[in-house]
């Protein structure tokens, strides 16, 4: 990407911050997301040409909306060679859209945009990409880089998704009240996918767009649009609290660093503070959902001055609640780890094996890694070595393999 002048960079930043709101307003004018995006893009190009010489207009938003609207009308007029009915209706809508001067009083349509991008009729990867593009204002190239995809491939994916929205009858509107809980869950899932994708990337991939930051930004937008939704807040809290520890998860050379050895002084206190405040709000407001519970657990880790003084009993209690809502292997294993510190490794192992009996865990790496650790800490070293071997065989990430091998070597040495 060619380097930008500071003015251009400022304009680009400003446009990205406002992209979702501008795009949602324009989409609301004509109901057509693809056209709205094309016109907004046209307006941005015009802005990058005009603003460096004219200076920023008083109301850049209104300027962009007015310009984009003019471009839309031009495009529709040009495309109407076949004079189709749908085109005529669209043109009418664009011509009768509110004036840009009214922009300050225009309702925020970002929520409609979020629900459109996360519609269950789109495939999951397209939902993720479209949300980043439309709500987050990332470029196709940035999204492609984030997912290690080719720009062309990502472009085709986005175009297809927009075509499906238009052709399949996905309307730009809020879901009916009875559909809202499911649809919000779907949106939260998309945000969490973006966040986790960001955390999978290793720190040396500087080209990779910071998806974790993007997910947090989208989470903030969502909680602004849905101020009373507890799980939306819970997810934002979870992302903030998890991200606060990001820098300390990997040691020099990308080595995996467990919680026990993380440098707590380097945790991001600002994010922890925001995350904790959200958790407290949510827990006061009602029974916590799965995101809020995970956020609450994360908050307890974050506020412990060191590993030993963590409130493990409280964490076990929260995992028990989480298990009731979401009985999956991840919760099972994490609960066993917490139990091993709240009581002892032997109790935790019994619980892990008893509860895990009905689950299909033979190929679940964390189950074996956890068993190995619990066995080793009881001095059952021979069994621990076997469990470490199982875990290593199931691990792909080289830094995790290295970590497990080191642990196994320690057992063999002591034995």
């Amino acid at each position, binding site marked *: 990407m060619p380097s930008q002048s500071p003015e251009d960079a400022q304009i680009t930043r400003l446009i990205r911050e406002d992209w979702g709101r501008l795009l949602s307003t324009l989409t609301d004018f004509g109901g057509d997301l693809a056209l709205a995006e094309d016109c907004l893009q046209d307006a941005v190009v015009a802005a990058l040409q005009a603003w460096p010489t004219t200076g920023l207009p008083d109301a850049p938003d209104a300027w962009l909306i007015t310009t984009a609207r003019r471009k839309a009308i031009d495009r529709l007029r040009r495309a109407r060679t076949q004079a*189709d009915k749908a085109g005529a209706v669209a043109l009418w809508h664009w011509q009768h859209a509110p004036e840009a001067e009214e922009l300050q009083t225009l309702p925020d349509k970002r929520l409609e945009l979020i629900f459109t991008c996360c*519609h269950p009729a789109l495939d999951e990867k397209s939902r993720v990409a479209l949300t980043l593009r439309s709500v987050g204002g990332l470029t196709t190239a940035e999204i492609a880089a984030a997912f290690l995809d080719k720009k062309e491939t990502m472009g085709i994916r986005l175009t297809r998704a927009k075509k499906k929205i238009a*052709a*399949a*009858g*996905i309307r730009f*509107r809020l*879901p*009916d009240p009875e*559909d809202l809980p499911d649809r919000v869950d779907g949106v939260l899932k998309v945000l969490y996918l973006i966040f986790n994708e960001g955390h999978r990337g290793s720190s040396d991939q500087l080209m990779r767009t910071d998806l974790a930051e993007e997910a947090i930004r989208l989470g903030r937008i969502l909680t602004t649009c849905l101020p009373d939704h507890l799980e939306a807040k819970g997810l934002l809290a979870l992302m903030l609290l998890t991200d606060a520890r990001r820098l300390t998860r990997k040691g020099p050379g990308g080595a995996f660093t467990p919680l026990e050895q993380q440098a707590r002084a380097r945790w991001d206190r600002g994010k922890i503070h925001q995350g904790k405040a959200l958790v407290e709000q949510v827990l006061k407001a009602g029974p916590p959902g799965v995101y809020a519970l995970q956020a609450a657990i994360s908050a307890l880790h974050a506020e412990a001055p060191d590993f030993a003084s963590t409130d493990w009993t409280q964490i076990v209690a929260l995992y028990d609640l989480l298990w009731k809502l979401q009985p999956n292997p991840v919760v099972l294993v994490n609960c066993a780890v917490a139990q091993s510190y709240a009581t002892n490794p032997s109790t935790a192992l019994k619980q892990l094996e008893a509860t895990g009996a009905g689950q299909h865990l033979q190929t679940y790496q964390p189950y074996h890694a956890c068993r190995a650790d619990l066995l080793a800490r009881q001095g059952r070293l021979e069994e621990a070595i076997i469990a470490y071997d199982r875990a290593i065989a199931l691990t792909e990430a080289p830094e995790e393999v290295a970590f497990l091998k080191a642990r196994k070597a320690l057992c063999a040495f002591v034995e």
Partner: protein
Amino acid sequence: MQFMLLIYSKEGSGPQPGTDEFGPFIGAYMGFTQKMKDEGKLISGEGLQPVATATTLSIRDGKTETVDGPFAETKEQLGGYYLLDVADLDEALKCAAEIPTVSYGRIEIRPIAVYD
């Protein structure tokens, strides 16, 4: 906006004639059809005879080929359809969720192409 709701299921997977479940199942279909009619959404809707009755035709280079059986040998077969006029995909999805076969098979929702 018009949508075609295509009803696919494995033949013999739903309640069968002669069982206790069959009456309520057919009743549910009649109820759904009536509801769509009352709400002004129904354009048409029919059930199809089993795939054993299907004949598939093609003409290539002027040569006609007639084959006994359905277009594709799949586990789930097209068994019927509703053509509905509703506001958007969300509404079509809601209607599809009320088709009794949704619990046994699958409903594919396709917008009708508009040529104007």
